[in-house]
């Protein structure tokens, strides 16, 4: 199975260790992984700001980079979801359709395609899970608290396979962190306030580590934590899943 590794721009530039963990994780589970060197981004930032047409060239480039792979996997539900949901802005060729259909976030890929049932990882910490809105309400990787239905969370399900990891429960299980793309600067007061409130919820409930699947949310929350000098670590979910030593 040939898997194309999609590394969103934030990860590439700021959190390369997340991409390394994703790559190693896929290889550990038997995938033949390729990394198209000419990739940049999915195009979401412009589109969410109302400038969908400025995303078209980036979307075409994305398809060009990934059309040859059986699957495309990224550690970023938000970006993956954008490709799935919004690549109708470019003509629907067979290649575009293929990419939209075969792109997966790492959690869903491991659980639903590779069907893994155990994972060799240790993480002896109290962890708060920040389920990003795109993972939860966009891709339906978890039940949202507004809906009346059975509770489930794929990210939680996979993290439960990790030895030693202890979940803390939040007062507000799935409130948005306030990043929101350009919202984070165009509405900076509300955005920062939401970030502070989210961090406070994790702190109040004893989190040593906050994890999640979307690096943009984590980057935003980390910005708050560092400014407030809080003793909480920000670790992406794939880093936990790839962690075999007893310390991160």
């Amino acid at each position, binding site marked *: 199975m040939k898997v194309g590794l999609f*590394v969103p*721009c934030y*990860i*590439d*530039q*700021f*959190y*390369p260790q997340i*991409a*390394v963990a994703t790559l190693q994780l896929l290889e550990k589970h038997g995938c033949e992984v390729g*990394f198209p*060197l*000419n*990739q*940049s981004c999915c195009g979401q*930032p*412009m*589109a*969410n*700001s*109302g*400038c969908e047409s*400025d995303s*078209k*060239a*980036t979307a075409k480039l994305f398809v060009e980079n990934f059309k040859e792979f059986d699957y495309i996997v990224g550690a970023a539900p938000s970006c993956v979801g954008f490709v799935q949901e919004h690549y109708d802005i470019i003509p629907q060729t067979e290649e575009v359709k293929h990419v939209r259909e075969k792109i997966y976030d790492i959690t869903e890929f491991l659980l639903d395609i590779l069907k893994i049932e155990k994972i060799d990882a240790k993480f002896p910490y109290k962890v708060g899970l920040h389920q990003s*809105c795109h993972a939860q*309400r*966009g891709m339906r990787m978890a039940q*949202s*608290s*507004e809906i*009346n239905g059975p509770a489930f969370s794929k990210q939680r399900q996979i993290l439960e396979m990790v030895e030693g990891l202890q979940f803390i429960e939040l007062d*507000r299980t*799935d*409130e*948005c962190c*306030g990043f*929101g793309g*350009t*919202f*984070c*600067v*165009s*509405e*900076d*007061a*509300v955005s*920062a*306030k*939401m*970030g*502070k*409130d989210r961090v406070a919820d994790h702190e109040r409930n004893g989190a040593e580590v906050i994890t999640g699947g979307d690096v943009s949310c984590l*980057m935003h929350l*980390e*910005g*708050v934590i*560092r*400014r407030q000098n809080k003793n909480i670590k920000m670790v992406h979910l794939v880093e936990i899943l790839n962690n075999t030593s007893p310390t991160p």
Partner: protein
Amino acid sequence: MNHAQAATQFIKDEARTDWHDKALWFVRYKRDIQTKKVPEWEQLRELASQIKANVLSELDSYLIQFEENALKNGVHVHWAKDAHEHNDIILNILKAKGVRKMVKSKSMLTEECHLNPYLIQNGIDVIDTDLGERIIQLRDETPSHIVLPAIHLKKEDVGETFYKYLGSEKGASDPKYLTEVARGHLREQFLTADAALTGVNFAVAETGGFVVCTNEGNADLGAHLAPIHIASMGMEKLIPRQSDLGVFLRLLARNATGQPITTYSSHFLKPNNGQEMHIVIVDNGRSEQLGREDFRKSLYCIRCGACMNTCPVYRRSGGHSYSYTVPGPIGSILSPGIDLKKHSSMPFASTLCGSCTDVCPVKIDIHHQLYKWRQIIAKEGDFPLSKKIMMKVMGFMLSHPKFYRFAGKMARTALPIMPRFMLYNNLNAWGKEREIPQAPKQSFREWYLKNRE
């Protein structure tokens, strides 16, 4: 002031922002408890959504059916194409009967049409009788929420208002005492009014009747005491059958305030002996919205207010930070259709988290509509040129990997902080309360080339 500026003002008082956020979150919490007690909740939502879809697809015939039945019941029916006509019709009804004072209950539509100032200008005294509405009327404010119009005020604020306008004790903040003061004051208004106006929650096409849901009972009191009852309704308020109420009444109060049902669901069918009953059916931009395929569903709204209670942005910015009468998520998809330029900042007052869509009892795809309005506003609305250019630059950079890599590398090695373009060229706004990510020496691509190729 656009939404971001108004929100910045609001948040300056952080303790009050926290209080506002918690007060509304508590309503959402009560809503969750109630809705989760109904096993068929999701089916009810689906059914309600389908009924509304049906109503809108045949709105013309339902409206005619409703009018015919209402006329048979002895009710006067009026049609208003916009706010001005609505106000005029009401003024004429009141003038013809020599009305001097009118009591009002439960009507966001009259807020939308700015009826109060119009009538007052024309010499008619209008008294809002619902407690929240009355408080803000005394303070000369607008509602900050469609169900809880005075939610932005603390009980101390109310005490002060009553002290100033109704002569209650200074410094009083006991809700029970304040309610008594209001009750005494309002009783007198009810007894001396010669007309009553109410809103309409649901109008039933097959009977010509309508239902008003309240907790205080003021709609009944007003409508039964005064010789004239006028009901103002948006033309999307129709439901086909009486039995459909079984769906909507179960959804409305649970989703709005976490009550199993509102204290009063008042059914009006025909005037009492010696009374007059009028219904004013208002368009005011609704048929235009109906014609916009992407935004049609916004007319499903039953005004439960849950999208406001759940919205993390609304809770932290308050209803008055929005430029339209209806604030929050639903207001943000209705308002651009009314005045695109004036309300251009509203669809951007959201992270697109989607909580509004999931909480909506009639399944309006609110956050998708926000996204779609953004596309239109970037082209035709009031959209900052700097942002437009920024997006073009980003679009160029991200579709030309060499430039993207160059910009990234420059910033990381020189500063070393995040390349500006990745925070939308606005490091200042980011940096007020958040640290800028520290950049690693090498990007993943560089690592890959070194270690894997």
